[in-house]
């Protein structure tokens, strides 16, 4: 039996008071509730951020009317979507049509369960956390595939077939980048991976593996953008070509589930990126004692948020700058460039780890 328990003051207290089974149930319920809260807040915050960042890139102001700085705009949007009729075209496959919007958000929710947000802030800490992350993120692909198929619309079908081809391909190089870090850290537990980066900034895997770490980080950024279905790699949506792709036929709440999943997914990917390459919840120590003391006084969850926020900003930057790739160019980029490069990079990383050629 693998011990998934994470020590946390509240969890420990419940375990002391209650017998094992009720304690596990109570802790589980608490964890799910807090994650649900996190997901909701994150989705709202990220929708607002996206609208603001996009507006600034486009020389606009973005939402300003609803609440201070337009902060309540996402809530107004959500209310609008809630009040819309949940329209289902008659020719759709009902089970597939209603099942599909639930899968992507479930996938990203599951990914968040194993992310260490702080020293003791993690729902579960499985030894094979990385494998779990990869498996759970696959659910999202299933959602777009089923949704596109069940919609019985040619645009939706094209979009979902594109996303199938795209997500399966890009998952490979993303996994290879993760594998490099797993190999270097010597553990597939996300918590262990973070703890293996203790020390200064130079001990983060992005810098510690000379060259290979940074290359893996870049490859991870590109392939996770593709996994997230965000521009310039948002081929399964491709508004200008496919009028919305896999979610063409969705309206109201079932559309907003896809919409929310995109943002929660983005947060999950950014969280993974900062966990693997940027030292997760660790403070960025620079080796000067006085500064480091101040930096480590800041709670880890804030550092985690800042690092993830930086990555999220990068994703938004990509999206609002580049034109979209064409589907054959996209697949050629993966199979002819990113995959060989990430394999070579893995080999380079393995060599570095084997011969101990890490930064001191």
């Amino acid at each position: 039996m693998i011990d998934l328990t994470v020590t946390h003051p509240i969890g420990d207290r419940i375990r002391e008071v209650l017998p094992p089974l009720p304690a596990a149930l109570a802790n589980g319920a608490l964890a799910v509730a807090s994650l649900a809260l996190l997901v909701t807040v994150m989705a709202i915050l990220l929708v607002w951020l996206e609208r603001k960042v996009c507006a600034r890139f486009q020389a606009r102001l973005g939402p300003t009317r609803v609440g201070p700085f337009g902060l309540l705009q996402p809530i107004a949007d959500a209310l609008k979507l809630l009040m819309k009729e949940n329209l289902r075209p008659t020719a759709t496959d009902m089970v597939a049509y209603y099942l599909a919007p639930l899968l992507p958000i479930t996938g990203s929710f599951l990914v968040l369960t194993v992310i260490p947000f702080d020293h003791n802030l993690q729902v579960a800490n499985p030894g094979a956390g990385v494998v779990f992350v990869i498996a759970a993120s696959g659910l999202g692909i299933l959602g777009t595939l089923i949704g596109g198929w069940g919609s019985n619309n040619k645009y939706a079908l094209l979009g979902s077939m594109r996303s199938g081809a795209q997500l399966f391909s890009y998952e490979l190089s993303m996994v290879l980048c993760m594998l490099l870090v797993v190999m270097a850290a010597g553990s597939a537990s996300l918590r262990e991976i973070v703890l293996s980066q203790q020390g200064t900034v130079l001990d983060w895997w992005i810098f510690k593996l000379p060259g290979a770490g940074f290359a893996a980080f870049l490859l991870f950024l590109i392939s996770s953008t593709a996994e997230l279905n965000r521009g310039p790699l948002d081929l399964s949506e491709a508004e200008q070509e496919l009028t919305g792709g896999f979610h063409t036929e969705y309206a109201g709440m079932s559309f907003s589930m896809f919409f929310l999943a995109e943002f929660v997914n983005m947060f999950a990917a950014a969280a993974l990126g900062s966990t693997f390459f940027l030292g997760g919840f660790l403070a960025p120590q620079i080796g000067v004692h006085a500064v480091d003391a101040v930096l480590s006084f800041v709670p880890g969850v804030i550092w985690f948020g800042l690092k993830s926020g930086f990555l999220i900003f990068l994703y938004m930057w990509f999206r609002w700058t580049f034109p979209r790739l064409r589907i054959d160019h996209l697949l050629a980029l993966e199979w002819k460039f990113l995959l060989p490069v990430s394999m070579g990079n893995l080999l380079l990383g393995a060599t570095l780890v084997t011969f101990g050629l890490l930064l001191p």
Partner: protein
Amino acid sequence: MNTPSSPSAPAPEHRLPPGFALHASGADGSQEYFLNMGPQHPSTHGVLKLVVRLDGETVVEVVPHLGFIHRAIEKMGESETYVQYLHLTDRMDYLSSHINNLGVCMAIEKAMGIGVPERGEYIRVMVSELQRIQSHLLWWGAFGMDLGAVTAFLYGFKEREKITALFEDLCGARLTMNYFRPGGSNADVPENFIPRVLEIVEEMKFTLDEFNALLSANPITISRTQGVGALSRERAISYGCSGPVARASGVNFDVRRHAPYSIYDRFEFDVPLGQNGDCYDRYRVRMEEMRQSVRILEQAAASFPEGPHRAKEKPVYKLPAGSYFSSVETARGMFGTYIVSDGGLKPYRIKSRSPNLSNLAPIAEMAAGGKIADLVAILSTLDIIVPDIDR
């Protein structure tokens, strides 16, 4: 493609006309299907419907269906006086409304022998060139958006707004101008016209560099456009293409240069030409045309004369019986106006030769064999204005 209402070739019931039918699925391994792009689709820019025959994502055949915004403008022209007809031409190619007006005015002037004062001619040239820049700026934004770079759309509109604001001060309208009149223009330019034009000219030089930095040199843009939708010189001529579409294919034809009207022969400007006729060349040609328009504006602003803006207005414009033709270079190509007059107050027949129909024609040839995304890029670089096709 024939519609059932066309009596010349009635399609047999439940059968598509020859040349536009699906191959039997599986016979040659193909599994083709139809996709209706439009009339409500984000990148058909208006109410154009493209019926696309697809094999997977590969386009096999494209058939444009027209007529969704047909308003019978030419027929309406027969029941209006010549000056009244001007505002209808605004509603054809609404991004070249000044230049369309100019075409009709020139035909009337030719018929009645009306001259245009010096200042009026300068106003015509400058406003036409501003319109060309304005139209190309909107095209640039829409092109970026069609490729998925939504930010470009906003940048294009931001710059376009300056010219639109100038037009608003000029004639009160922002889109359907109705400014030119036989013998000159409706009103004189506002006092600060020249300083504002110079300001726009200076900003445009910076803007074009910025645009190049944002989109032109981007490897994704280049891979999406280079070699996509190539149109050879011969095919461009045989389809009757004009404007940037034809020039990108290497057809050296620009009405401003080869049949100069107004006072275009006084200004120095180059006619940018492409070689391959692909989307990338059409893109480059339009970008360069904006620079050339800036050159013309600079020269015209430097020698802008004083004097009347319009020849003495006539109480009625009655064209002597006969037929008259004029052609101008709009932002999209050659716009011809053919008027047949029976000597009355209203034209007997008025016909427009709009550039967009001929420019859309080669789309089937250009898009076949490409991907859906290529079709969008091609449609975008053809820069179609659908109301100009349907009229």
